[in-house]
């Protein structure tokens, strides 16, 4: 709201100031104003990603050096962990990818966003709501169930804000001029419509015992499956064909992939309690659905693989496309790994170990970060016509790759070791000291990711603040940049 105002103020001022007729140097800024809501969402997402990383690293250090920041209740491990997770879900992934959705929807529907002001307002509301929710958890008001820790009224804040976001996007759908719906739009519909139902169910219920647990995991897995994954896939389906300048490999395959994903993903929740004290049918249904996830994942693998094939030369020149491919590999890896973790015999060994952590982070780092970064570079380059520093982007890419590999490999290895030890009769207390070196590798990998992320933020900050002039140097006289 205020920034829109400031923005238009600047434009008016410039119009007053420039006395001679010249190509409008603020044409780019006009575009910026068009996409105002999308930018607030996207850059908030990138901001929260940095915060999530910092908290993650603090938590990782506490796991091998428990005296670190000890005796401060708000910074205790058990309070920081839910803050890290909730910022990862509701800050980084939700906000960043909603930014991408706000970018894609007007372009794919050929209609302006229903309301830019509402879009920006909901983004700011979401930011403050998340901040309030996280402070509340740190002050000891956690609701205590995974992914629904954020207490009232902040939890309901997200529900209401999401309804406003969904209304905004859906109204744009209704006013669309392009009648055909591209696959990205299907995924966005799946993301925005059921959210209020399972979110409210997961956050405002009075269940107890096992029913509470089953509903908790139904809600949580829908957050990953039909909220974050769908928004992420929508983004990849949009940018990859544009990056390689080829049409999508097959619309039939994406049709199959979409409907099988919609059919199977909501059933996945129960796989968090395999072998637990839940009725057998909950386990069977969830294990079946988890294995069936192979179909939509394979469809996506084939579709993106087919699109990317033959465009390998783009990999060398376009860092943004390289991040897309990283996201594609991260998605395929995390999904197939997730299905395999639901195989009952394998689950019996690795449930409760660090392998779960490895799997989640392959999803969030490999798919989540890489996809959002790919979109951000794509947006800067293709939409804003800005050129970012290639060398910084190269550093960012390789630090991210190293960080992901270090993190996922160390956690998967210790997960497997723990699982084997426990099956041989060792206890979690007994395997505690085995974890130390792996936890140190994890913290170092997190550090590399944070360095890469800082370079990235510096790069886009530099690009956004200094580049408009250089991009239009040929058109704009030197003295008019201010």
């Amino acid at each position: 709201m205020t920034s829109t105002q400031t923005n238009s103020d600047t434009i008016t001022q410039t119009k007053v100031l420039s006395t001679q007729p010249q190509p409008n140097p603020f044409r780019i800024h006009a575009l910026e104003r068009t996409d105002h809501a999308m930018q607030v969402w996207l850059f908030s997402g990138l901001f929260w990603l940095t915060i999530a990383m910092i908290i993650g690293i603090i938590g990782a250090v506490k796991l091998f050096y428990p005296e670190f920041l000890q005796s401060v209740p708000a910074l205790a491990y058990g309070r920081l962990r839910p803050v890290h997770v909730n910022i990862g879900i509701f800050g980084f992934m939700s906000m960043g990818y909603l930014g991408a959705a706000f970018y894609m929807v007007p372009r794919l529907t050929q209609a302006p966003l229903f309301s830019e002001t509402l879009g920006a307002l909901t983004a700011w509301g979401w930011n403050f709501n998340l901040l309030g929710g996280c402070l509340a958890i740190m002050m000891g008001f956690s609701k205590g169930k995974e992914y629904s820790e954020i207490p009232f009224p902040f939890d309901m804040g997200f529900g209401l804000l999401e309804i406003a976001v969904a209304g905004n996007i859906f109204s744009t759908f209704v006013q669309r001029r392009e009648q055909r719906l591209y696959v990205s739009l299907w995924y966005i519909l799946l993301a925005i419509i059921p959210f209020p139902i399972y979110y409210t169910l997961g956050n405002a219920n009075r269940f107890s015992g096992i029913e509470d647990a089953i509903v908790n995991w139904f809600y949580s897995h829908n957050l990953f499956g039909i909220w974050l994954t769908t928004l992420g896939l929508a983004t990849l389906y949009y940018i990859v064909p544009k990056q390689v300048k080829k049409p999508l490999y097959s619309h039939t395959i994406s049709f199959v992939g979409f409907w099988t994903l919609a059919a199977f993903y909501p059933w996945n929740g129960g796989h968090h309690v395999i072998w637990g004290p839940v009725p057998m049918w909950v386990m069977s249904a969830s294990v079946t659905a988890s294995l069936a996830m192979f179909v939509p994942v394979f469809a996506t693998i084939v579709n993106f693989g087919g699109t990317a094939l033959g465009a390998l030369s783009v990999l060398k020149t376009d860092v943004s496309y390289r991040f897309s491919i990283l996201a594609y590999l991260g998605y395929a890896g995390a999904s197939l790994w997730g299905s395999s973790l639901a195989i009952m015999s394998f689950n019996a060994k690795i449930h409760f170990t660090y392998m779960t952590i490895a799997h989640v982070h392959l999803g969030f780092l490999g798919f989540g970060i890489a996809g959002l970064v790919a979109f951000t570079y794509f947006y800067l380059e293709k939409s804003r016509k800005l050129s970012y520093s290639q060398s910084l982007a190269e550093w960012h890419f390789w630090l991210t790759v190293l960080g992901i590999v270090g993190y996922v490999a160390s956690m998967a290895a210790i997960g497997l070791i723990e699982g084997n030890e426990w099956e041989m009769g060792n206890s979690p207390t007994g395997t505690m000291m085995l974890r130390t070196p792996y936890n140190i590798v994890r913290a170092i990998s997190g550090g590399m990711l944070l360095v890469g992320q800082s370079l990235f933020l510096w790069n886009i900050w530099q690009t956004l603040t200094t580049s408009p002039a250089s991009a239009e140097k040929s058109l704009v006289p030197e003295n008019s940049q201010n």
Partner: protein
Amino acid sequence: MRYIRVFPIIIGLSILFGLAFSGLAVAPAFTSSITVPSVGLVAYTPSELKGRHIYTREGCVYCHSQQVRSVKADENLASTYGISKSGDYYYDRPHLLGTARQGPDLSNEGQIWRREIGEPARDYLIGHFKNPRDYNPMSIMPSFDYLSKQELSDLTDYIQSLGAWKSPVESSS
């Protein structure tokens, strides 16, 4: 008429989501094994509930599970305390089943640090909350030295209630 092509998508998605919703959110409420408490299960006392609230607030659940499964990794626990059943959790709100074991499973902690032991058990638990590394130098558990005396006592009450109601496992074979 404009959104006529959006409707089939929305209807299709509603059916698919509705199926999963009835399966994983509605059906459990009508499953008798979930809605009936286990034999002998005792409701929490007020101080135990307060302790449970502290357990939730401090995020103990992120490192400690509260379930024994019928798998090889849990063989020792299962043979000593038996396998957890749905009805064991009848009074748990919110549930604290847990998803990781960075520390030991706590579902039967009340059978280890039994109330009958009296002061020594309580002293151990409270001392361990305050600084776990006094007891196990390798421990990575945070020290909860910022909890008040009353809070530590409530938390101890709760820990001692875990599994304390269970009758001893008889060796069936």
